[in-house]
């Protein structure tokens, strides 16, 4: 009885009600629940990416989307309309997936960053076009199987957060649903900053990554622990690592997912080297201004 009551209270307060259209184990609803607790009701959501769109379908906030290929652009219009109306009290959040942000709408995100639009741009990254049935995107990692990379992806994942950071925007961060406190702190910080804020979060995808839906959080936690998914922020150009775990071998992360099943030892070694290199570079620049 007491539990029911607690749940009812939580549900009543929650800005996400009525279930989701996402796959079991999807990181999308998990992310939005955490994010919405910080964002609060004075928020307008923009974005219509299929996976991210499914996750946002039942959010009780004013929401506007056009189509998945429209990223940051409609939010730019909303920001302008709010400015025209003199509304300073509303947070505009623009969402998109890795395909929308890394591929088809990359120029749009870059342009919104250049214009320093007053919004939080989210990249909810499940590392492929999952809604259409697991096709490779520019943010699919090296070696990952997708239906369009049946032998594993030949090229590397685009480093979008760092690219956005080089636009000179006030805030860029990476996040993971495995670290809710870190994730929420970053959203809260972004809300307090004027201008373009970019938060790139991982969205574990059991369907596309090939793992047991019950293991979503475990899998992405390993992503952080193996430095495959480093958690950092870049505030006014200064890099700060928000999580510095003792590095576990990347194989521990890769072996949790069927999409990496075909990797050869050489490929795993290559990925390990890359993770090591990234970790060293990040630690080297921790606390330093990395904007050129």
């Amino acid at each position, binding site marked *: 009885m007491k539990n029911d009551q607690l749940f009812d209270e939580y549900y009543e307060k929650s800005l996400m009600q009525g279930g989701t259209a996402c796959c079991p184990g999807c990181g999308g609803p998990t992310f939005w629940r955490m994010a919405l607790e910080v964002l609060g009701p004075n928020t307008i959501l923009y974005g219509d990416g299929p996976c991210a769109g499914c996750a946002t379908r039942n959010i009780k906030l004013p929401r*506007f989307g056009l189509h998945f290929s429209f990223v940051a652009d409609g939010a730019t219009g909303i920001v302008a309309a709010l400015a025209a*109306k003199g509304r300073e009290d509303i947070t505009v959040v623009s969402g998109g997936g890795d395909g929308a942000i890394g591929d088809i709408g990359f*120029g749009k995100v870059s*342009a919104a960053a250049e214009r320093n639009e007053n919004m939080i741009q989210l990249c909810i990254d499940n590392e492929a076009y999952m809604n259409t049935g697991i096709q490779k995107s520019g943010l699919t990692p090296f070696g990952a199987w997708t239906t369009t990379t049946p032998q594993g992806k030949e090229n590397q994942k685009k480093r979008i957060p760092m690219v956005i950071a080089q636009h000179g925007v006030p805030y860029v961060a990476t996040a993971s649903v495995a670290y809710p406190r870190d994730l929420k702190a970053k959203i809260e910080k972004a809300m307090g900053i004027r201008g373009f804020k970019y938060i790139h979060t991982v969205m574990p995808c059991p369907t596309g990554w090939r793992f047991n839906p019950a293991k979503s959080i475990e899998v992405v936690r390993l992503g952080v622990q193996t430095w495959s998914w480093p958690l950092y922020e870049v505030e006014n150009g200064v890099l700060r690592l928000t999580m510095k775990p003792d590095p576990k071998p990347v194989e521990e992360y890769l072996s949790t997912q069927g999409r990496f099943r075909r990797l050869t030892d050489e490929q795993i070694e290559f990925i390990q080297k890359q993770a090591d290199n990234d970790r060293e570079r990040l630690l080297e620049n921790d606390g330093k201004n990395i904007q050129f």
Partner: protein
Amino acid sequence: MSFTRMMEGNEAAAWGAKLSRAEVVPAYPITPQTELISHIATMIANGEMKAQYIKVEGEHTAMAASCGASAAGARVFTASSSQGIVNMEEGIWMPPGRRLPIVMCIVNRAIAPLGSLRPDHNDSLLQRDTGWIQLYCENSQEVLDTIIQAYKIGEDNRVYLPVAPCYDGYFVSATATPTTVPDQDEVDDFLPPYKHEMYNLMPDEYKAAPAFPRNIAKARYEVQKAMERAKEIVEEVDRDYAKRFGRSYDGFLEEYACDDADAVLVTMGSMTGTARDVVDEMQAEGKKIGLVKLRGFRPFPTEELQELAKKYHAIGIVDRNTSYGSAGGGIVSMEAARALYALDDRPLLLNFHVGLGGSDVTMRQIEYMADKVLEAVETGKVKEVVDWVELHEMGEVM
């Protein structure tokens, strides 16, 4: 205070947007629209116009930002041409279905390949199926007046559709004609602030994508109905505008010097000015040709055209566009054919392709077309249904 001076079409359009108190202007430059947005940028920088100017990185974003701003409750103005219109195609479909009364000037310019900076109407006519109201303007004054009318039409709660005032690049955009700029208070009185009702009234299932097909059919039918209602509103707004500002454009189509005519030429846009002179001259020679200026293309003035058909034996449609492999001729003529098909007693219908890629539509060509139409009346037959006028001149057509 109202004042009159020589003004290019693009400057007149900027005045139209300013007087309409557009609040958000997302725009990307493209010849021949550029002076329009430069004028607006300057007006905003000088503090003469209070609006958010978004310097977007492309037309696809210009339309998306327009949708976002309109959905968030702002009055939105944007403009583009040719490749820009095609670039934003994905976005152009959004405002009608979302019921966002954005106003976008289409400064007509031919589409590549064989890129031209000069006008034909394929860029705007390509949008005929998207749910935008389209009004074609002949000169600077009409551009300015039509933009103010456009907001009044689009924001009417019987309509709630986006409106595209279209005008020819260079021939209108960069040609100075005498233009009266109305008083701001008068415009404010005519055009009250945008009351944003429709989007919020839309049920959730229309906002979600993908929607259920049943809902899509219903939403599309609603747009169609709004288009049909817009026919009356366009006329009504033009009448009200005339009462207040003393200028009318006869709603959808204007009959010029048609009193004794046996046949008419139907023109669109800047060529109409030339055609007026030619028709005057030909009538002075005793030839019974009249002129119809088609101002509204969407919604299409079916009934008005049917009325014309009752009065004139032959109608010559002048198409400044192409529709390769179509059922017959240009886009306007095909629309006209469908409108006239319903009649028991159909007039002779001729179609001319002219001014493609922005070549001049000359007085000689208009006279040639008028003679062809009159010849059809005389013989009771149409010799050539679709006539590529310029190729005739060059001796290229067998």
